[in-house]
């Protein structure tokens, strides 16, 4: 039964090869992907190049401007902490939180959507009604409630709180895809051989949804980065001495009259990161999203 998905792979292979070609033509997206790779490497390697730690105070150079003395390449904050190190660490934290919560939200969304779409009937109706209700709530408030209740700044709480609200769109899309997949012959064949529902979902349905899953992963990541920095900006996310881009921007906003670079440095990194992820996500969804296979876009 492992080969039961053969009839679809030829078609989707064809589509994928063409769409990969399309995607490769999209130079802006490729450039953006390159910048993301660069930022990932910088976030990992960068802090090692500087002699400073994220929480080390340099009393000689407090609030020093960028390209300043003593290898403070991007300046220091009011306490003399090195901004290059803190910002790159912030990028790293933002990336980690967004990746983990994207994974969480995809796991929930794909399971929810696939089960609802495959099982159907009343279960489907109930599950999707629940999604509708959650959809009409401003989700950031749920996150704020969750961060109010649990230990502040604990990374697992942040992963969970942010990931728990991002899965709704994914669930809807995956359900729609599952509905059409469930009617295909190879699923019927699998059922005829007596495969159990979980087995069918795991081995036949979900592997065939790889395209939309990748697209929604790419579209979810920048949203998660935004949520995380939003919370950290308000003081509800990552706590001192750790820094994320959001909390650095908040620190910078307090000091912008005397030390504008404290605001500009992390803000630039955040905006570049968000724009690159958005570009890559849009390009991927143009290329892989089955909803507009024809590619007839304005």
């Amino acid at each position: 039964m492992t080969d039961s998905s053969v009839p679809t792979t030829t078609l989707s292979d064809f589509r994928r090869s063409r769409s990969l070609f399309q995607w490769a033509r999209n130079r802006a997206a490729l450039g953006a992907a390159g910048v993301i790779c660069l930022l990932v490497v910088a976030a990992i390697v960068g802090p090692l190049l500087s002699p400073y730690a994220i929480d080390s105070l340099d009393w000689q150079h407090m609030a020093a401007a960028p390209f300043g003395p003593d290898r403070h390449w991007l300046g220091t904050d009011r306490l003399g902490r090195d901004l290059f190190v803190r910002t790159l660490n912030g990028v790293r934290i933002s990336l980690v939180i967004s990746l983990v919560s994207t994974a969480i939200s995809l796991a929930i969304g794909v399971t929810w959507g696939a089960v609802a779409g495959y099982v159907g009937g009343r279960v489907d109706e109930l599950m999707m009604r629940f999604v509708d209700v959650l959809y009409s709530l401003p989700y950031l408030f749920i996150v704020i409630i969750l961060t109010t209740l649990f230990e502040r700044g604990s990374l697992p709480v942040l992963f969970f709180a942010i990931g728990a609200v991002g899965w709704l769109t994914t669930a809807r899309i995956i359900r729609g895809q599952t509905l059409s997949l469930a009617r295909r012959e190879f699923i019927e064949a699998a059922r005829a051989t007596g495969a159990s529902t979980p087995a069918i979902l795991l081995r036949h349905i979900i592997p065939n949804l790889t395209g939309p899953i990748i697209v929604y992963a790419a579209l979810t990541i920048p949203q998660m980065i935004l949520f995380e920095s939003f919370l950290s900006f308000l003081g509800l996310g990552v706590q001192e001495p750790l820094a994320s881009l959001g909390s650095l921007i908040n620190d910078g906003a307090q000091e912008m009259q005397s030390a504008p670079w404290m605001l500009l440095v992390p803000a630039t990194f955040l905006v570049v990161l968000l724009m690159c992820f958005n570009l890559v996500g849009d390009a991927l969804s143009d290329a892989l999203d089955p909803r507009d296979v024809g590619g007839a876009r304005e």
Partner: protein
Amino acid sequence: MLRYAVRRIAGVIPTLLVIITASFFIVRLAPGGPFDQEQTLSREVRANLDRVYGFDQPITVQYARYLRALSHGDFGPSYKQRDFSVTELIAQGLPVSATLGLTAMLLALALGIGFGVAAAVRRQTSVDFGITSLVVLGMALPAFVVGPLLALVFGVYLQWLPAGGWEAGEPRYFVLPAVTLALPVSAYIARLTRSSVLEVLRANFIRTARARGLGFRRILWGHVLRPALLPVVSYVGPATAFVVTGSLVVETVFGLPGTGRYLVQGAINRDYTLVMGMVIVYGTLVVLLNLLTDLVYGWLDPRVRHD
């Protein structure tokens, strides 16, 4: 239309109940109580506090009490600002927040529709390219980046407008916050408008209108805009949610005494009743505006209500 309206209105009630029930139980079942951080309360004082706030009752009784009080518009006492009830705090902040939100929404609609139509009409020219790039930038720039930057440029360097603070009846204090709040929404609206105007321009009835010899201006105002703005109407609901969440940031950045700042402070101070009250107020607002959007949409586009 009536059946459609009744069905949509009936659909709102469970949502509101879910908001209220979920925020109540999440808050009550969470580890830790509102008085945990205050050190060395003697047992008697603690018992008295619990009795005053009703914590000695079973949770179902507390829930029933909360619902009953809520139906009278009473959100209970604030746990941290002892002299105020949550209702009083909301009543203080709401005028500021409502003015800010409404101004921002109108500004976003005006900017977004204007730029969107301009980009669609001048498709594939430098105007279109410029607007589209601005839109990408506007959507990628979150309010907590735009706000401080605007305050820095216009408040600190140019000194045209106050960088923060608020005085009643002084519109100058509203300009930067409203612009900050409106920018990302207007970017979305511009993108929506652009693509839907382009789509309508390709429709058969527009070709017919052209064939009849109508001028472009006439076609644009008389035939294109109404159907093209339908997606924008349906975006007003989500946009409200966006403006509401954005106002949390904007009120914090510019130091406005609105409800958004209370919510943030309440969350930081773990003032449970305040957070709950705010979430209920904002949640209701968003749900009602979504409802209104759906009704207006159903009224504008008959295809929707005959589903």
